[in-house]
């Protein structure tokens, strides 16, 4: 389903900041604008004084002497030391109070698990067992708690509309929460960007996700049930294509012959020993291999075992062992068959 069809045309409310997706976002924006106007005030004041002095006291003759003026003034110096101190302490305090709102979830939350790996997100719903790929669906007006971890390097979930982000660190779980707000009268899902904000290698800038906010819990549950059913009932080829799109394959493997970080899937199936050389990362030896079911399954589970000659070794691809079910792997294989070497041409432009 194409959610954008229903997405409201959300325009940001201000010049500086993106759309406000939550109450907390609105609170931090108040801070942003408070500091912003404070900055504007000080900047204009300092620049105005600077320009005024520069014009008024400019040197007109080469040996013009300065006018008599004191070289220090204790009262003035105390004032401009203490005043910024007080402003800063006040800012710290309010910043910290809202920060607590940003960081501390309410006791009852709707929990979703997140796995980050190069270069895709995987959002999983522990209650229903649904495995959602790189699009995060949530109900509105419900505190959502993400429990996140990474299988490789450090990533960072960043949702600008929620004004929040948190690193996704391998070897530990990090938590982040938000409560997506639904404007009154809004009955269709809202859509926001999710970025990776911590540099994670080759395709870091394309590690995109989407956040879809459903107006009510009921809408969300309806979507969830339909999604589970549709994934279950998908014929293998469609399931394979879904996996390709949503589980991160797409980031590196094109299906139209374009060269990516990994080999294109177009024409991969059916390559023979004549045209398919692979390299073993551990031994460094090269040998020809036929692309068949076993080769594909091995490559999904152990990317480093047999790397296509001419591509980076060790492979940047994370292992999908345990990430994909046998059914899904089977789907990928069936999908690759349809765009294989001898397959009829498929409309491939995504």
């Amino acid at each position, binding site marked *: 389903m194409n959610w954008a069809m229903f997405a409201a045309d959300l325009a940001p409310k201000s010049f500086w900041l993106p759309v406000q997706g939550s109450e907390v976002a609105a609170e931090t924006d108040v801070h942003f604008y408070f500091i912003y106007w404070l900055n504007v005030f000080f900047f204009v004041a300092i620049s105005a004084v600077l320009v005024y002095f520069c014009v008024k*006291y400019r040197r007109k003759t080469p040996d013009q002497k300065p006018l008599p003026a004191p070289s220090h003034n204790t009262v003035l110096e105390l004032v401009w030391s203490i005043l910024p101190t007080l402003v*800063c302490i006040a800012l710290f305090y*309010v910043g*910290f109070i*809202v*920060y607590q709102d940003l960081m501390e979830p309410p006791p009852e939350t709707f929990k979703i698990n997140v796995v980050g790996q190069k270069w895709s997100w995987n959002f999983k719903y522990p209650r229903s067992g649904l495995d959602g790929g790189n699009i995060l669906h949530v109900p509105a007006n419900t505190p959502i708690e993400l429990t996140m971890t990474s299988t490789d390097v450090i990533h960072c979930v960043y949702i600008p509309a929620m004004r929040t982000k948190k690193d996704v660190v391998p070897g530990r779980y990090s938590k982040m929460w938000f409560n997506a707000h639904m404007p009154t009268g809004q009955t269709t899902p809202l859509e926001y960007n999710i970025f990776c904000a911590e540099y994670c290698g080759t395709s870091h800038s394309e590690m995109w996700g989407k956040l879809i906010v459903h107006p009510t819990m009921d809408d969300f549950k309806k979507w969830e049930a339909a999604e589970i059913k549709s994934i279950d009932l998908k014929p293998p080829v469609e399931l394979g294509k879904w996996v390709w799109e949503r589980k991160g394959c797409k980031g590196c493997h094109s299906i139209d012959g374009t060269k990516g970080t990994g080999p294109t899937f177009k024409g991969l199936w059916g390559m023979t020993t004549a045209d398919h050389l692979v390299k073993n990362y551990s031994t460094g030896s090269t040998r020809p291999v036929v692309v068949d079911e076993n080769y594909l399954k091995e490559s999904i589970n152990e990317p480093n075992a047999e790397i296509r000659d001419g591509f980076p070794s060790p492979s940047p691809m994370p292992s999908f062992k345990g990430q994909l079910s046998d059914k899904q792997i089977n789907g990928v294989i069936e999908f690759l068959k349809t765009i294989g070497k001898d397959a009829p041409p498929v409309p491939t432009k995504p």
Partner: protein
Amino acid sequence: MSHEPNGYPPGDNYLNRTKGFLSWITTLDHKRIGVMYLCSVLFFFLVGGTFAIMLRTELLTPKSTTQMPQDTNYKGQHEDFPQKFLFEKDTYNQLFTLHGAIMVFLVIIPSIPASLGNIILPIMLGAKDVAFPRLNLWSYYLYIGGTICFLVTLATTGLDTGWTFYTPYSSSVEYSHTNVIMATMGAFILGFSSIFTGLNFLVTIHTMRPAGMTWFRMPLFLWALYATSIIQVLATPVLGITLLMLIVERAFSIGIFDPKLGGDPVLFQHFFWFYSHPAVYIMIVPGMGVASELITTFSRKTIFGYRQIALSSVGLALIGFLVWGHHLFTSTQSNIANMIFSFLTFFVAIPSAIKVFNWLATLYKGSISFQTPMLYGLAFIILFTIGGLTGIFHATLSTSIHLHDTYFVVAHFHYVMMGSALIAFIGGIFYWWPKFTGKLYSDNLGRIAAVIIFIGFNGTFFPQFVMGAKGMPRRYQNYYAEYQPYHRASTYGSYFMATGFVLAGFTLLQSLVRGKKAPPNPWGGATLEWQTPSPPPTENFYHTPVIDDQPYNYDRQTYLGPEKGWRDDHYAHEWEDMVAHHDIAGTGNGNGQTNGNGH
């Protein structure tokens, strides 16, 4: 008279005493070492700057790729965009990594202390050289060693970890396939170069001040270098050991940072920023020192609040050690730690604000001249004000979370690192150029270049504040079309700024060929380096100077015209000898035969 200039042949100076390549690479003269540093630093500034221009060019247009999600609000946005990147993805990642690493480790950190500091610090102290001249040359050799490591990195597989070397990306051969060990080795060696320079300066300032120069009669540039040296000596070893641990993990798979080997990746960030945050002050504090000199000299007025400025440099150096955790606000660091670091970070604002107010008060009732160095001094105040004020967004926890790792941060630290530290460096070069080259450059060309750089700088980095606040993450090669107008503006600004730098470089090079001979004191500076010929003799002074006043006494100076510059009555002996031995009357061919008529 303690030190007769008898030994000097007429017209002798540090540049013409000995000649030849060998005489330079074996020199122990702090001025020559400083000049060699300057040339190396400017070369790497050119390299790092070229990388920056390449990055900005790539970012002119977003690209339409298979990864671009199709169901978005910005439907159809990418259809018109090219499908091909200008650079391969890995190449782009290497470009921003090397831009950052070169600019930080090879350019900004050594820029003011090691080049201008080396040239000027001993002269400002009325000394013949730094305390340990051989150690000084060794620092330079180490710097060259470090740069060779970086050049080898460039020539082999490059570096793609980001200049911050975050683990486990950098520490595992599985993730980064580039020459991380060579680059970290380079940074390690450069660290020692930096430590030795700092140590040298500390000892020199402690032991070699001239008679009468008490601590509070020291020029503010020296206070700034003193504060910087403390940080260099105390913080850099932490970077050294951190990089060694990284090398050990990468080379021998000993688990320190990589969770697969039982390590902790966030630990690396603590270690790294324990150095790299103080390093921010290694970069900016000397710039503040230069700005203080420029503003007082070109206002012809004693600096306002001398003690406050001097002590605020030391204050910044100390507070700088306590705030590293604000780089880890989103790193899973505990909320309590975040709270403490946010609180401490705000205290950075106070010494910074004090300095800005004092500079403004110095201008008050001054006699302000807008020669090239002063334009950089004024640009410094404006750009540092923006850089400093926008720091408040990052210190405040609530807004910091949103802005962390976006272009807002990129803009903020470029305003501080480039708009302040590097602008002060360029201003310092223009200020002291006549002193150490003995040539006057075209002030008009210099001023035009300064204005172009100032406008270009704001054109480049101000749009980055806007797109960052709108959520554009940093280190991105591809982006959504909504951010394109800001990227475009930024790129055009960078081109404009680049022409300014080319013009500034041309101005300086032209002066070497066609510049007029510089008088000892072309600007009316009151500190000691202006009381000796330009360029200075090998041992800096004809007479060991004696100090009897605060460093910025402009009352004793007389203006003798553009050829002869300014004469300081307190240093009458020095002046007479300069007249006798150097062509400061501007009448002859520069080999010192003039019987000056400088009173």
